[in-house]
């Protein structure tokens, strides 16, 4: 098999997998243009009549500008905090080999295993008692829940960054802090982007935690508002799917851009070397 046919073969496999992966999205997109009745009569096919109204109603009910902003601010703040402090913590744990660093690493790992539902009520009670149930409280909670995985990832990535790099800087008179932020952190860029992506999608979509913590009108995030399309008995699929489409698009754009950034970051690093 020549290189070219091999690649064509792989591309074909990619195409088929891509189609399979896209199928549920096709369902969401196509049904977002249907009337409620049409969705139930004809789930898979194209709409018998294209309805744009779903989008207008959904945007109105979601109060989309405000809600979008709320989600954005919480997501950006949380991810920034997670990346900053987790990379530092991972650096400390990876560079210092001691009993405490081993134990702490395992403590962080264990924290990932705790099902959220089991700490939910005590957590809300604890934060409620000190009046921290608001956006800042929420960001702090995301740091607590998000840092273990981030530390895990940074820890793995730090292994391939030679110690000589930061140690040289320190000998040159840099403080640890400077050495980390000026030399180590930039070379962790691909990991930072990965950590950011994984956390953005989690926080952007999280429903349960914000629904417990955010209790002021006008501060709701997108998932909270989307769930108003799902009632006690009935689900307003036509509105929910239109809403979902609007919510997903910015994230897809972000992901696509971030991906280019990763690739750029890697090539830039290669040139420097």
């Amino acid at each position, binding site marked *: 098999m020549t290189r070219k046919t091999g690649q064509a073969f792989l591309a074909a496999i990619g195409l088929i997998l891509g189609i399979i992966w896209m199928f549920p999205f096709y369902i969401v997109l196509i049904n977002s243009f249907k009337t*409620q*009745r049409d969705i*139930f*009569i004809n789930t898979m096919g194209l709409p018998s009549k294209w309805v744009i109204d779903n989008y207008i109603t959904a945007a109105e009910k979601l109060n989309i500008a405000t809600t979008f902003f709320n989600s954005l601010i919480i997501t950006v703040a949380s991810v920034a905090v997670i990346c900053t402090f987790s990379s530092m913590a991972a650096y400390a744990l990876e560079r210092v080999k001691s*009993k*405490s660093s081993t*134990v*702490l690493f395992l403590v962080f790992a264990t924290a990932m295993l705790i099902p959220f539902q089991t700490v*939910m*009520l*005590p957590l*809300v*009670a604890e*934060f*409620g*008692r*000190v*009046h*921290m*149930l608001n956006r800042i409280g929420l960001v702090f909670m995301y740091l607590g829940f998000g840092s273990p995985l981030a530390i895990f990832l940074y820890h793995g990535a730090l292994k391939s960054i030679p110690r000589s790099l930061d140690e040289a800087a320190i000998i040159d008179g840099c403080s640890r802090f400077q050495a980390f932020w000026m030399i180590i952190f930039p070379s962790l860029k691909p990991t930072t982007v990965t950590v950011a992506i994984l956390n953005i999608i989690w926080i952007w979509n999280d*429903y*349960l935690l914000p*629904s*417990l913590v955010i*209790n002021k*009108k006008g501060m709701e995030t997108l998932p*909270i*508002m*989307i*769930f*108003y*399309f*799902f*009632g*006690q*008995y*009935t*689900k307003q*699929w036509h509105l929910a799917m239109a809403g979902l489409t609007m919510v997903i698009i910015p994230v897809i754009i972000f992901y696509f851009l971030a991906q280019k950034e990763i690739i750029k970051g890697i090539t830039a690093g290669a040139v420097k070397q």
Partner: protein
Amino acid sequence: MKRLMCLIFTLVLAVYLLSGCSGGGKTANTESKNAAQAEKVTVDVFQFKVEFKDAFESAAKKYTESHPNVTINVTTVGGGTDYGAALKAKFNSGEEPAVFNVGGPQDVAIWKDKLADVSDTKAAGQALPGLLTGVTIDGKPYGLPYNIEGYGLIYNKDIFTKAGIKAEDINTFEKLEEAVKTLDANKSKLGIDAVFALPAKETWVTGLHMSNAFFSPEFDGDIMKAFNAKTIDFKYQDAMKKMLDLQNKYSVQPTASLDYAAQVQKLFGTGRVAIIQQGNWVFPDLSKMDADFAQNKIGMLPYPVYGYKEDCYPVGVPMYWAFNKNKDPNTLKAAKDFIDWLYLSDEGKKIVMEQFKFIPAYNGYPSDAVSDPLGKQVLAAASQGKAINWVFMGYPDGWGMNKLGQDIQLYVSGQLEWDKLVDNAKKTWAEARK
């Protein structure tokens, strides 16, 4: 290691102290603010009915217009999660709402430390007879009904006419069975997939509503008897088996994964099945799909309990408004006044009838308060003594859905014998009430 522990404790302590301080400061602040605007009252309402969120919020707004010193904050819990979980979290967070929802005696028992007596409200005096029983302890009522709902077997009039069946004549189980067989025999002529759509995936339909009709006679229609029962006899299990078997045998298959949307909107709403077990709450969903169909082409057959009442409809209160007794008297008063206004003032009545489209649970509404065909039938049944009381809110917490309803799923898919289901039901009920 010791040093590590020390450090953690110091840090935690520091954070706690810091946040504690700021928290304290905040309370002091709000208190002084409250003093400045003495008569201003804020009522937080935490409610579960997503279907009437918008209408309810606009009602609250309307109330504020005529009562400028009162602010009403409505929080609604979105679908997909449990109202009970969200409510517990809300209470634990210390930001307790003034008004929330309870379902019946089981909820009242759980929440009793928080519930305020409502006998001083006008609404309690105007509630239709018997509706407060389920929320009354020692003669004191602790909740005000939302509305009345009822269910039965909703049928498609066109299909019945085509098959030559007169719906008015069906007033016993045997006649129902006969009609079902006629429909089944003419499936292709009538253009239906099956006679029924039994949504066994929705354990509230089977485990609560269906079972309710057969447990109600066992407890003489008294929800408090159900609530106080340590054990059950399952006296009407044969009648229930008949009904379940009939609905399952002639249903679109497989029933164990059939849900509400498929049952009501996809199958019944598009004429693919002739009969479904549901209540008057399906009207808005059907109406949104086809207004003419919902208004003119559907009716409700009675829900026959073989050997008991075979021409009646189970009718009851789905939810009650409850008030938090830990709130200060001013807030509590404002909260109760709001609910009184909503159900008893002329302005409020109009909202309840026209926007909520509720079947009213209070006196003083016009006889034509309900405009949809299903609601009318439920109201008629209630006023003609053709009602079977709801007792399922007196089941042990979670029993109907998580135990009985789940076992019914196994039964309808042939993985559990009926006798075993009955045994399990008796055993799990007794365990929960130990």
